[in-house]
């Protein structure tokens, strides 16, 4: 297992290098110069030169020890992403500060969606063809067809503004639990459709197997068959879905964070895109890639833990 993990970790090096190369090419070569934006109105050519020197954009692109690409690699390895050009704040400080609020929204959202959708999927899979199953599938399709923004606007207008059940927006006097409640609820409801359909399909594949009939024939209760046997055997696709979703939890939710004032990484990302703050976007992409690669490895390890037939070959 250790050898396997080391080997997989070594595989991540070219992947991460590839991500760094692509982000560098995208943001430093293709996207163009942002010096004018930093310089402000009526800036002279000299000021622009100074800005280029300050951010290292006057150095050779590649093929030199202090080239822009080499510095890009060095910064990534040391997690020293420098300062954002839009507000001159250290990028790593932004990331550290945003991770907490993002997770405070995405973890409840993720857990809520997961628990509700798996539980419901088991029930509707067991009741396949029943009116309950048909209604749930219809609702799932309807839920998937409604734009995410509509859920936000509807929830914010009715649940927060009109009926005053939740706060409309982040407010300094409130504890995070209060203002995160509604966006998390909206996230759960909006995410149920797709997840429930996916897990229902997984459960249906599993529930049709012979061992399920055998279990019922032996007189086991429905709850025991579903939650003890079917759920356990359906773990491989569930693990794939769940573990690979975790990196995205760190990256937050772009729309929910913006509409509810949660100062997380999703908000940071949307701001950076709007301001063409490439250094922030590049840093976030890199962090996202690292998380994705690590959680991919964790997924593979989990496969072996839940299914003894899979080996670390």
């Amino acid at each position, binding site marked *: 297992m250790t050898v396997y993990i080391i080997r997989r970790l070594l595989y991540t090096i070219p992947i991460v290098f590839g991500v760094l190369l692509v982000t560098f090419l995208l943001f430093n070569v293709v996207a*163009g110069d*942002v010096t*004018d*934006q*930093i*310089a*402000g*109105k*009526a*800036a*002279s050519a000299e*000021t622009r030169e*100074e*800005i280029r020197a*300050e951010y290292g954009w006057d150095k050779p692109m590649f093929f030199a020890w202090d080239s822009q690409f080499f510095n890009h690699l060095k910064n990534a390895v040391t997690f020293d992403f420098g*300062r954002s050009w839009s*507000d*001159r*704040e250290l990028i790593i400080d*932004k990331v550290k500060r*945003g*991770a*907490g*609020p993002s*997770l*405070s929204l995405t*973890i*409840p959202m993720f*857990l809520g969606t997961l628990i509700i959708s798996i539980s419901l999927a088991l029930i509707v899979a067991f009741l396949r063809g029943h009116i309950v199953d048909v209604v749930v599938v219809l609702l799932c399709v309807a839920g998937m067809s409604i734009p995410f923004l509509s859920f936000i606007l509807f929830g*914010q*207008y009715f649940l*927060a*503004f009109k009926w*005053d*059940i939740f706060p*409309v*927006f*982040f*407010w*300094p*006097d*409130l*504890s*995070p*639990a*209060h203002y*995160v*409640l509604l966006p*998390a609820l909206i996230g759960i409801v909006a995410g149920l459709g797709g997840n429930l359909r996916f897990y229902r399909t997984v459960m249906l594949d599993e529930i049709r197997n012979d061992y399920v009939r055998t279990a019922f024939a032996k007189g086991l209760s429905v709850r025991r068959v579903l939650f003890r046997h079917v759920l356990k055997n359906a773990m491989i696709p569930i693990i794939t879905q769940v573990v690979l979703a975790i990196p995205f939890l760190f990256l937050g939710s772009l729309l929910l964070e*913006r*509409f*509810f*004032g949660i*100062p997380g990484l999703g*908000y*940071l990302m949307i*701001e950076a895109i*709007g*301001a*063409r703050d490439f250094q922030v976007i590049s840093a976030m992409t890199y962090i996202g890639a690292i998380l994705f690669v690590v959680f991919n490895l964790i997924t593979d390890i989990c496969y072996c833990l839940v299914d003894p037939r899979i080996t670390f070959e």
Partner: protein
Amino acid sequence: MGFALKLLSTAFTIVLLLVAGCDNSGPVVDSNEVVSYGALSAKVRGLDPGDIGDTTSSAVASQIFECLYQYNYLKRPYKLITQLAQDMPQVSDDGLTYTIRIKKGVYFADDHCFEGGNGRELKADDFIFAWKRIANIKYLSKNWWIFDGRIVGLDEFREYTKTCKSRAEVDYSRPVEGLTARDDHTLVIKLKKPWSQITYLLAHLPTAPIAKEAVDYYGKDIINHPVGTGPFKLKLWHRGSYIELVRNPDFRGEVYPCEGAAGDLENGYLADAGRRIPMIDRVVLVLVQEDPPRWFLFLQGKIETSGIPKDNFNEAIDQKGVLTADMRKRNIHLRIFRDPSTYWLGFNMEDDVLGRNKPLREAISCAVDREKYIELFTNNRGEVAYGFIPPLMKAYDPQIKQMTKGTYNPEKARQLVKQAEAVYGGKLPRLTLSMAGTDVVARQAGQFYRRCFKNAGLDIQIDYMDWPTFQNKIKTKSAQFFSLGWIADYPDAENFLQLFYSKNASPGPNNFNYSNPEFDKIYEQIAVMPDSPERTELYRKAERIVVEDCPAVFLLHGVAYVLHHDWVHNYKPHAFGYGLTKYRRIDTAKRAAYKELLRASR
């Protein structure tokens, strides 16, 4: 429902505290404190006045920092009065030397950067340091344009900073001939040539004094640690979320103005005359970038003031242009005021097709239905522009409407297109209008323009792009014609005239790359003239020259609509002032009554 919510809330709190490590404590609320709540529609980028270039950061920093001068809060037309200066500047006969006495007994707010943590007295050297800092090229200030080529020796100081390897290496004790402190409370400024607008710039936030101790202590993190002399000081800044300011206990004694403009007494603006300001203990500003939540927060009484989002306009304003019954029931007040702004479709005069073809430019100008545009895209919050000087300015020319040939007239536009084809020597090529913004509203505006141009027989395509790309296109002279505007920095039409001066061509502020020797001559003449009827007449003459040459389709001058709750007193709109919270008064009993009103109406 209540139990379920409680359960969920508790569960979330546990998850948050365990996993996210969030701070569960909001600001400590003292029931006797008078707190003002507001919303910021854009992120505060930094609170270092020398490098501030956006309105949101200026609005916050202006509560913390002060300048030599400020605008009288109530009087109209806008008039400068003293702030940190003892009196208005003494100007030498040749208009080149400004002697400014600085108020005694003004202290920087207490901060760790000072010895013992106690703020020290403001000195003339603090202004000199702040301005040299803007001149320091290593500091990369956005505000060098203020001083560029103005003060004796300051350009040379900037040259010197170019020879330094880093910003830390710059020696601020190096003398600048045009910036001297006669004593701790007298500042002498020597100009290269007369510059009558200097007093307006001395009321502009970037010229606020800075304590060198703060810059040395905080280094690059000075953006997070504002140390000023103003009525408030920063208590908490949760970047990207909210800012909390508290009353500066060491603020110099300033009182609410005792005189105002006509009607101010009747409107209650003088009720607090002579009262010590600020009248608010704490200011909480929450970042709310989307319109729907900001509007809901306003109606819930969480924030005190709000603009009117385009989609909520009919909810707030009725057909007659006054507040709707619902707004009146809520005791919401509407303030309407003119913006010092002009919006246009600018032509790149260096473009081969447009620059050499005046009939074509005039055809485009005649094709655009301004009134319809104002109705569709601003809910009638605008006035048709015939020139570039807004009606708010003293130099506004009431005759400009008669002078302009480019008013909306589709028939005339079609005739001008024929003339333009004759000038071009054949069928006109397809033209490209560059527009900043890729959202729905930008595309709707683009469709509107296309329809206008099509009616006139013009083939124009619209190129939508994000703001940075747009800016880059303008600065590199690669846009053929573009949608843009200008909001004046100060109430002097010179601020608009500089946009047409040939030496300011892109990447400078003259985005039209317009050049007319006659205009340039007048601009150079008025740039050194003090305010006078002759100068006003020259402003108008210069504007007529531009209008005649048609380097832009002048579209509209902005009109702002602002709503505020009745518990906010002394809310008088101001087109140029930023740090105005100090004048406001909050009636907490009325605020509580509004909450009751909401509760009763549910």
